[in-house]
């Protein structure tokens, strides 16, 4: 990567018009240099496309038994069938849909809560800040999985409850991050200028401070998304997450938790595991590249 920039390739590439480009153009130009992140984006896109098309075009129902049990992969069933007689490939890609749904919704919920609380906490300070930060401390003191497990036991495991639980447990990190950026932004001259100019608090908060926190929030949410997908998988794996017959990447592995399947039916447990790794690695690569690309202090 570095060699391309510094090495002989330099003369062949037309120099970008760095001085006049917009912020997002800079981000994209820097982002493109990360090979792994580009591979990550392509991977996610391919998986998304397959998740959209496979269950739609597949002749099989992901939750219906075909009465052919534990069949090894064949042309008819590219990933074989499971112990209930369902087509594994159709199930795998409908599981991707569910896992992504959980990940995206949970991330969305925690981001909204975290950003709002972080903005309020950092901007108003005082006892509001004190209260919000102590709640954050308390939630962060519980080992995350333990809290989610107890919550899942309380509210009965299931698709929507898992989304809500992950969403409501995951916000403290974002809240702290946003609060931190708000505190430092409040000291900047452009915010002080607006205050002196008599702008309303809402204007300063939403039109001046919020846009400047978008980059760190976006970077953080990619890691929250990756973690949410992993957490859903872990919870469903131990039977406290998405419940059968709905397929999720985690509960597909739950069914494979015995030595017979482990030994002689690898098509039942390797594909969902590899799919989780692919998705999460790809998302993490993208997040890492975003961190580099969005850093305003980077000179590149």
């Amino acid at each position, binding site marked *: 990567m*570095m060699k391309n920039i510094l090495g002989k390739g330099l003369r062949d590439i037309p120099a970008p018009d760095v001085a006049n480009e917009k912020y997002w153009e800079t981000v994209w130009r820097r982002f493109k240099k990360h090979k792994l992140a580009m591979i990550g984006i392509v991977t996610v896109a391919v998986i998304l496309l397959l998740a959209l098309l496979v269950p739609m075009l597949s002749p099989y129902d992901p939750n219906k038994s075909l009465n052919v049990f534990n069949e090894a992969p064949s042309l008819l069933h590219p990933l074989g069938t499971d112990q209930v007689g369902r087509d594994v490939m159709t199930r795998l890609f409908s599981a991707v849909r569910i896992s992504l749904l959980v990940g995206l919704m949970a991330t969305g919920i925690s981001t909204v809560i975290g950003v709002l609380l972080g903005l309020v906490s950092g901007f108003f300070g005082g006892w509001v800040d004190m209260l919000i930060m102590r709640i954050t401390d308390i939630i962060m003191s519980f080992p*995350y999985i333990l809290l989610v*497990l*107890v*919550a899942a036991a*309380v509210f009965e495991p299931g698709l929507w409850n898992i989304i809500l639980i992950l969403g409501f447990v995951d916000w403290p990190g974002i809240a702290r991050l946003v609060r931190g950026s708000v505190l430092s932004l409040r000291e900047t001259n452009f915010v002080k200028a607006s205050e002196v100019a008599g702008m309303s608090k809402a204007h300063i908060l939403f039109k001046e401070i919020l846009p400047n926190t978008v980059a760190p929030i976006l970077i953080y949410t990619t890691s929250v998304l990756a973690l949410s997908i992993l957490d859903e998988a872990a919870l469903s794996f131990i039977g*406290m997450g998405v419940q059968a017959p709905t397929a999720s990447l985690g509960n597909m592995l739950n069914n494979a938790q015995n030595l017979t399947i482990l030994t002689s039916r690898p098509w039942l447990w390797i594909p969902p*595991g590899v799919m989780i790794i692919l998705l999460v690695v790809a998302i*993490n690569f993208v997040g890492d590249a975003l961190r580099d690309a969005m850093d305003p202090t980077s000179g590149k």
Partner: protein
Amino acid sequence: MVKYILKRLAIAIPVLIGITIIDFTLSNLAGSPLDMLVGPRVSEAAKLAKEVQLGLDKPVIVQYFIWLKQLLVGNLGYSTKSYQAVSEMIGSHIGPTLLLMGSSFVVGILIALPAGIYSAVHQYSKADYAIVTLSFLGTSIPSFFLAMLLTYIFTVVLGWLPSAGMTTLGVGGGTWDIIKHMIMPVIVLAVGMAGTNIRYIRSAVLEILGKDYIRTAKAKGIGRFKVINKHALKNAMVTVITIFGMEIPSLFGGAVIVEQVFSWPGLGLLMMSAINNRDFPTIMGVCLLSAVVVLLGNLITDLLYAVVDPTIKYN
């Protein structure tokens, strides 16, 4: 220093109270243990007697204070399932968990620290890319899937390692037997921990290497070894300590999953069976304990800061 410790403790106390409230509320929402008493032989009168016996007929707030008062004298209550004292149950399960967490912590550090430092010192080299890519893989692989892969390789194919429990039944244990049972769970936990931390350590060291005093040290010509080991690493330690301090909660959480997969007889297994049985005194006990461990971990991290970084003054 003493004043600083007291101040930290004073901040920790409201958090601790908050923890007990959340803990109590959650497990009360979890449903009454009376729900487990169903069947034609259980009469309403028996249920009522049980309710009074367990103190469940009192208002929730009163129940909370009864529980809190007992807590202060070290009584975590009795399991509604096995009628054993919760503190006793925790006592008999905490050893294996601490053994597992401690070993994984050490192995995780032994992997992450050298790899992270090497990666930073050799930035943009092939080895650096390889380490960073591997560390991404380490964070992204679900612990239970890695556990299944390892079981497949080491138990099914090679037959070297046992896949469940802490000792072989009948043989009765011995150190080597326990170590054999520990290898796979420790690898799983350590890989997850190292995966995340390699990149943090790498960027911490990189940041230090970019500082002016490092350039000065280099310019003095004291040699690469001294620049890195004497000037850079010592300063990077402050960040490194925080990074590892933050690992304690996720190790605790990771242990729950890993103990499930490998049937490791620790707090994670205890917790899961308690959840399945709606045994909420036990759930509350384990949650509370883990939260206290996390709080203590944070406190120790803060104190280590003071030891490592002489520029931090606590007055």
